[in-house]
């Protein structure tokens, strides 16, 4: 049931022009950034690296900044915000959520189905970002392990943002509000440690742990720690749990 709801939902997403527009914008952004990095490496870093006989290479100077850039994080947020608009908020506004509510379907099925559809879209969105660096494989020796680790980081980050999106979508019947909430919660989660660090002037272990980027950056550098993976999974489970509760509450309230 969950998978069928998800498949149907993803199909609906892919039928909407909005999804393709977001897809196009994010790919253009990513590709432009990627080309810029490659060009910079070729014309600027490569001679330096050779002259200094440095162990650094394309993997450090192109792929790392590519996955570490705010641009990709922004693209992920944009995708998640779009999903937040479509998922539950839109259904609540148009009244079609009643179809799910009056069917023999559990709230968990609805929340998971919606979540998986959103995540499916994010995976589609992120897949070209794996292919862009991979296209360099013919010209140089790629560190495949690091590339895959960074991509896993993108996927986990996307998974977390999607769970935020589905929850935000369940909070309101206004798609625009759901999108804004997603971006808001997402940005706070990403940089909560930077904010508290700026105020107190020292690093704080709690906010450091809570922040998304603390767990994302090691993966970009090629370090996959189970504690980071568990952090992301906890986040996803938590927000889906909130969504289920919220769906139940909607049946009680309105």
């Amino acid at each position, binding site marked *: 049931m969950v998978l069928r709801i998800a498949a149907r939902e993803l199909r*609906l997403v892919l039928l909407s022009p909005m999804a393709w527009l977001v897809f196009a914008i994010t790919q253009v952004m990513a590709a432009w950034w990627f080309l810029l990095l490659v060009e910079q490496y070729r014309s600027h870093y490569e001679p330096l690296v050779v002259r200094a006989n440095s162990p650094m290479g394309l993997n450090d100077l192109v792929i790392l900044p590519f996955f570490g850039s705010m641009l990709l994080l922004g693209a992920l947020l944009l995708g998640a915000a779009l999903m937040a608009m479509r998922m539950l908020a839109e259904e609540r506004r*148009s*009244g*079609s959520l*009643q*179809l799910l509510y*009056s*069917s*023999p379907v*559990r709230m968990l099925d609805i929340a998971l189905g919606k979540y998986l559809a959103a995540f499916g879209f994010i995976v589609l969105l992120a897949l070209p970002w794996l292919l862009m660096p991979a296209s360099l494989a013919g010209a140089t020796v790629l560190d495949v392990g690091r590339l895959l680790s960074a991509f896993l980081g993108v996927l986990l980050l996307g998974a977390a943002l999607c769970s935020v999106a589905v929850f935000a979508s369940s909070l309101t019947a206004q798609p625009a509000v759901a999108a804004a909430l997603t971006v808001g919660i997402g940005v706070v989660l990403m940089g909560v440690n930077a904010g508290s660090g700026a105020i107190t002037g020292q690093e704080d272990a709690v906010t450091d742990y809570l922040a998304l980027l603390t767990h994302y950056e090691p993966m970009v550098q090629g370090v996959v720690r189970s504690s980071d993976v568990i952090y992301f999974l906890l986040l996803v489970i938590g927000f889906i749990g909130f969504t289920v509760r919220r769906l139940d509450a909607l049946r009680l309230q309105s």
Partner: protein
Amino acid sequence: MSARPLLEVAGLGRRYGDREAVRGVSLRVARGEVLGLLGLNGAGKTTTLRMICGTLAPSAGSVTVNGVDLLDEPLLAKQSLGYLPEIPPLHPDTTVIEYLRFAAMLRRVPAREKSDAVERALERCALVDVRRRLIRNLSKGYRQRVGIAQALVHEPALIVLDEPTAGLDPQQVHAIRGLIGELRRDHAVVFSSHILPEVRSVCDRVVILHHGRQVYTGVPETEDRGPLRVTMQLARDPGADALAASPGVKAVEAAGEHGWSLTLADESDLDGLLRRAAEADWGLRELVRRRRTLEQVFLELTTGDEAA
């Protein structure tokens, strides 16, 4: 097997904060029966129907569908339910047939039977011609029918329709009434409306809601055994006194221009009145026997309370 009603609602109530939207509604619907829920706007019809369908949790009371308690086992109970909400829950970006397939899947129609079930629903709701059209591009009448098709695609024992004819043209209204009449053969139907003739024409039983209370339960047409009431249209108006002086007339009331509403003691007094009308040359143009119709019941129940 008819000992157990298909739908049994007992003491159903719903509060929104301090406001009591529905209180103490009890219904029983048997297989093959059509129950009409009548009430003014805001009387609690939609709230009641939503609670019956499990899309709104009641604050009090119980709902049993096909012998299964809706609150204890919602998944099982909902399999016997088809529901058309006030606003049809459609996905505008899909075609009619895709949408119905999804609805059939949600209602757990086995994969093998899905195509047949969808075809049957399309045919019943006269949607075969538009099956490949996007729901977004359909007219309101068609959308309403897609909404109904969604409610019956899984052949539920109980079909609940919330104002199925709202906003439709007379021909479509007629078609939907025909459809409800057809559905009663295999299903029980509960529907709400504020249109009296509609309820009268298709329902076996009527429940009138007013301010969230169940104020009337009974058959739509009640034969009145009390005093006979008639309305007369007279070309040459004799005046109230002359009418009151006629044999058997107990009360006289003006009813528009040249019209009089009379209350007679019983049937036999009608002959005397007619004879008198002919003799005195009142110029009788119309004589209508007034029954205690659903309209009257409805108006009596709903306006009296309003004044209080």
